[in-house]
């Protein structure tokens, strides 16, 4: 399934400084469904090249990271259980504190 995870707010530094990732992910089960939990572990394995603790804590993202599915906070769509569809844009962004 073609999908576009994007890493911003400093998280791109964990991915060879690449922000936009056009990838194709195989469905994780027989139902042909992909949920955010699957994507998260796929990103953790395939895109994060260093300091994975700056991306995840336990089975979800670390504190201070917002997750947006098609420009909408994943808290509004079921977090780890959010279903993904083809061409969805998923943004992982670290909150900034500078000024």
């Amino acid at each position: 399934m073609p999908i576009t995870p994007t890493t911003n707010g400093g998280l791109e530094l964990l991915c060879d400084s690449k922000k936009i990732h056009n990838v194709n992910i195989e469905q994780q089960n027989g139902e042909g469904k992909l949920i955010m939990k699957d994507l998260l572990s796929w990103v953790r394995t395939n895109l994060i090249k260093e300091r994975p603790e700056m991306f995840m804590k336990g089975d979800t993202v670390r504190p201070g990271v917002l997750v947006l599915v098609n420009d909408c906070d994943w808290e509004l769509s079921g977090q780890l259980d959010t279903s993904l569809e083809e061409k969805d844009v998923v943004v992982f962004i670290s909150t900034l504190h500078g000024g």
Partner: protein
Amino acid sequence: SSYPTNGLTQDMIHRYSRHLMLPSFGVEGQANLLKSSILVVGAGGLGASALLYFAAAGVGRLGIVDHDVVELNNMHRQVIHTEAYVGKPKVKSAGAACRSVNSSIEVVEHQEALRTSNALEILSKYDIIVDATDNAPTRYLISDCCVVLGKPLVSGAALGMEGQLTVYNYKGGPCYRCLFPLPPPRTACQSCAEGGVLGVVPGIIGCLQALEAIKIAAAVGEPLSGRMLLLDALSGRIRIVKIRGRSTHCEACGENATFTQQKFREFDYEKFTETPLRVPPLKLNL
């Protein structure tokens, strides 16, 4: 003349005429703005542009909190300060600049760092709070104080080539802790002094903070509450995304929250975030 002038003097009518003729702002919007008070915490990169536009627009009482002095390496982004003020307190420099743009408003200088011991007293004197600071513990401190006092908070941040902006604690919307109940790891919190920042990026975010605070003060338009603006300056992309609403479980503003003024005064923000309220700058060796 038969137009209502809501107590505006002839000088004000002249100065703010381009606001007054706007159907969606008008005399009422300007009168609201002149009656309002806004506090900007931080006279750095974000505060620089926000303060200039607040002063010019005619915010009735404009407060500035900062404990720092102007340094030469601030000047690539903190355009409110001139070289003549290097080594002098930022509140003095910013206050003078605001008055030179508009001598008809009240400008109040708070030359001190914001702490749990002084925040309630300072913030309670203003209608709207603007977070233009540069570190995680102060951001939690300001948000909690706004929740306790029931003040809207216009929050901006900038680092590197990116910026972020939202409005917290506005008419039942989320607070900072609703979004970030747990602090990020210390190593995820770079300041501009540590990580660098393209000067115009906080300039853009500071202007957008001024816009949002002016909309709230003038009671016009739809403030950026429940939404967050994300700027990626390098690629020229801006997203405005929908974020969660108020969390029922939020420790500061949730249904069963017990976050009182007393609890705020005793909360240890440095321990909570494992970060000092004042970040010592790293030296760049070239």
